[in-house]
């Protein structure tokens, strides 16, 4: 019997027969990707609004009184958890992973379409459970996004009754959803590539998502274990993490648990989580930079190695989040060293992005604005990470706004800029329409400059020693009035950046109907997803035959080629020989017609 590639097995397609199976219970990876993305962005908007409420409180503490101290802590907690897990992880993996992996692999769909669909609906369930915590009992948990016991379980912490329970259940459900999706991404990448597409011919987007998925599959279990044990502590009265505590003069039933054990489990997940978000962003931005610089990505092989090295190293740095919890100095030394080592492959990637731009034929399209903006913010956030990776510098800075500024630059602003770059870049393929270029560029400048106006001064506040996690700073000797004024300015910038996201949403919605009809390959990209016969691609992606791949995904500005890019599915017989490099335009035309 003739071999039928897994990528091409017809019975796996489950063609939709009704509106419901096409748009609701869809098993098409592209529809599921959009469902993931819309849900993630919607819940991200909730987190954005929470952050603006916090900033209003910090910038104008005596003026608005929108939230009380308990609600402030609830907002901090929900903002952090939503942004990191329910927005960024879901968007990069469920959104971009779902859309791009089968297309970039030349496959018709994910390997397990039903499980892929289930993954989205279980993810939605986890989001709904989390959102439900706003409406029950005292509201959501206010124990901070790290959910440290015993604080989260004590009566003084808002949401200690139902809020923390719903948060933990929601996280467990999210992990189940992610595992179903993650197995799909990994198996599709390994088993369902089209003919000729070797692993080292994959675009870096796929590499980034693939390695990040492996990280997530191995790191989320730590969060699951922590969540289950903490649920036992909360609901069944066990003492895995809960120590002996006297609450309002009354001893609680718990005894002897180890809060530090929870911290280890949490950060064993928590640090790889940084790279679960960062690695897909690295991959996507590499492709955007290469396409719009009309140049192959510099050091492709090193970029792949760096992604793998960063992924592996991310599992042995977790305790740098716990320096202030206290540890043996040798452990501190070990984790500081591994933290600094991880900067090496990361820096390598930054150099390669910059060298990709060097002498490129740069097209300053809107996606490129965001991609270049990412390089700035990532260098900025990465360098402050080197400060905090050292124990002796981390200790005084750990509880200040310096840390807030650092992690927002490196894993807030930077990945979000890549999200925007990627959405603008692939929007024509996803929707078949072009977006409004001017509005997109205005969106970039508002976001890029606005976020700098927020986070640069925040580093200074940190150096002053202004503590984070405070509802109001009040009057103290070490916080001058200028710091209060700076807080006001930061809030104004935050409100400006928040409002400017309306440019993005209105552009996306307006362009859906009114945007110019997009060419199948408007940027002249070489990777497979741009070579589909239909734009947007139809269900099954490739028509009668799967593509065959003859080259890597970065053949840009090849000397002597007819165009400044050669698609991956172009046979080498159509390439010019070295002798033909000073080519004849007529000959050139006839070859192009081939």
């Amino acid at each position: 019997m003739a071999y039928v590639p897994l990528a091409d097995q017809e019975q796996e397609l489950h063609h939709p027969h009704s509106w419901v199976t096409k748009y609701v219970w869809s098993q098409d990876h592209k529809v599921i990707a959009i469902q993931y993305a819309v849900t993630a962005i919607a819940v991200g908007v909730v987190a954005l609004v929470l952050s603006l409420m916090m900033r209003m409180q910090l910038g104008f503490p005596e003026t608005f009184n929108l939230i009380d101290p308990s609600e402030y802590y609830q907002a901090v907690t929900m903002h952090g958890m939503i942004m990191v897990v329910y927005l960024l992880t879901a968007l990069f993996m469920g959104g971009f992973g779902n859309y791009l992996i089968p297309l970039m692999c030349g496959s018709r769909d994910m390997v397990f379409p039903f499980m892929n669909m289930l993954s989205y609906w279980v993810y939605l369930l986890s989001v709904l459970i989390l959102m439900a915590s706003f409406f029950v009992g005292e509201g959501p948990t206010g124990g901070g996004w790290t959910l440290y016991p015993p604080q989260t379980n004590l009566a003084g912490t808002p949401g200690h009754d139902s809020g923390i329970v719903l948060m933990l259940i929601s996280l467990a459900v999210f992990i189940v959803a992610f595992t179903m999706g993650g197995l799909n991404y990994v198996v599709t990448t390994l088993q369902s590539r089209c003919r000729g597409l070797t692993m080292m011919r994959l675009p870096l987007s796929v590499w980034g998502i693939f390695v990040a998925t492996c990280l997530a599959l191995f790191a989320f279990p730590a969060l699951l274990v922590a969540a289950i044990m903490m649920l036992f502590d909360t609901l069944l009265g066990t003492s895995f993490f809960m120590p002996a505590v006297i609450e309002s003069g009354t001893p609680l039933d718990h005894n002897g648990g180890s809060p530090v054990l929870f911290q280890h489990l949490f950060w064993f997940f928590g640090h790889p989580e940084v790279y679960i978000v960062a690695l897909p962003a690295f991959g996507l931005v590499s492709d955007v930079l290469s396409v719009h610089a009309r140049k192959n990505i510099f050091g492709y092989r090193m970029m792949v190695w760096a992604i793998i090295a960063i992924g592996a190293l991310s599992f042995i740095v977790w305790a740098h989040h716990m320096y202030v919890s206290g540890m043996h100095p040798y452990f501190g030394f070990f984790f500081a060293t591994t933290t600094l080592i991880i900067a090496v492959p990361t820096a390598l990637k930054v150099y390669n992005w910059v060298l990709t731009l060097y002498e490129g034929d740069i097209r300053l399209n809107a996606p490129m604005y965001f991609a270049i903006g990412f390089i700035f913010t990532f260098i900025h956030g990465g360098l402050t990470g080197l400060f905090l990776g050292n124990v002796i510098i981390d200790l005084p800075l750990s509880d200040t706004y310096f840390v807030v500024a650092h992690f927002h630059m490196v894993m807030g602003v930077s990945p979000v800029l890549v999200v925007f770059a990627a959405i603008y870049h692939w929007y024509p393929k996803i929707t078949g329409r072009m977006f409004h270029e001017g509005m997109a560029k205005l969106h970039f400048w508002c976001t890029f400059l606005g976020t700098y106006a927020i986070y640069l001064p925040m580093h200074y506040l940190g150096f002053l020693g202004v503590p984070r996690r405070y509802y109001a700073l009040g009057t103290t000797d070490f916080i001058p009035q200028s710091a209060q004024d700076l807080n006001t300015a930061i809030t104004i910038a935050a409100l400006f950046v928040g409002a400017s996201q309306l440019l993005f949403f209105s552009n996306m919605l307006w362009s859906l109907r009114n945007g110019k009809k997009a060419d199948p390959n408007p940027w002249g990209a070489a990777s497979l997803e741009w070579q589909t016969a239909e734009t947007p691609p139809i269900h099954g992606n490739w028509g009668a035959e799967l593509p065959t791949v003859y080259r890597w995904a970065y053949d840009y500005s090849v000397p002597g080629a007819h165009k400044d890019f050669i698609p991956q599915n172009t046979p080498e017989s159509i390439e010019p020989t070295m002798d033909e490099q000073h080519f004849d335009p007529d000959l050139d035309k006839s070859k192009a017609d081939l």
Partner: protein
Amino acid sequence: MSLLKTLGDKSWERKGIIGGLKPVGAFDTAPEKVALVFFLVVASVVFSLFTVSYFIRMELPDWTPLADPAKLWLNTGLLAISSVLFQWARNISSSTSTRNIKTAFIGGGVFAILFIAGQLSAWQDLNNAGHYIASNPANSFFYLFTAVHAVHLLGGLWVWSKSSIKLLSGSEPKEVRLSIQLCTLYWHFLLIVWLVLFAVLSNT
């Protein structure tokens, strides 16, 4: 192609078709099996982290070891028989004669159900003896380990029940061959996990 050779490929130099229709570097097995192996690694991480937590927690002064019920030996035997029956079903599914395949496959699941019932009975005995879940961290871990293990087994039983229904409703054994192979692998894994957990619980 070895991993190092794969990662050392200078893909910018090599043009043309590499490999046949099967993707270069893909595992030569069903995708379901690849997914299951990845899932087993994920589950191994879960059980490993529970076990590490157990060892860290037992160092703290309030730890009182729990005398595990003798019933657990019987339960272990039930799970081992379950695993053996699945292996038998797997062997039959690969051979030309498919006699006894229903007995072996369905029997494997039934013994797994008996194992879970046995674990519940062990819980009941502990409860009756006053060893409640929150009395001591050793107790808490006993209930936690057995519960998480049973939940994994229940997941397997869901797949087993679907295939059993197919077999009983007259499907050809070759139609459920893959399912039988995957169930067997999963059952062996859960038997090994249980043996490790049992050893940890019994010896500390």
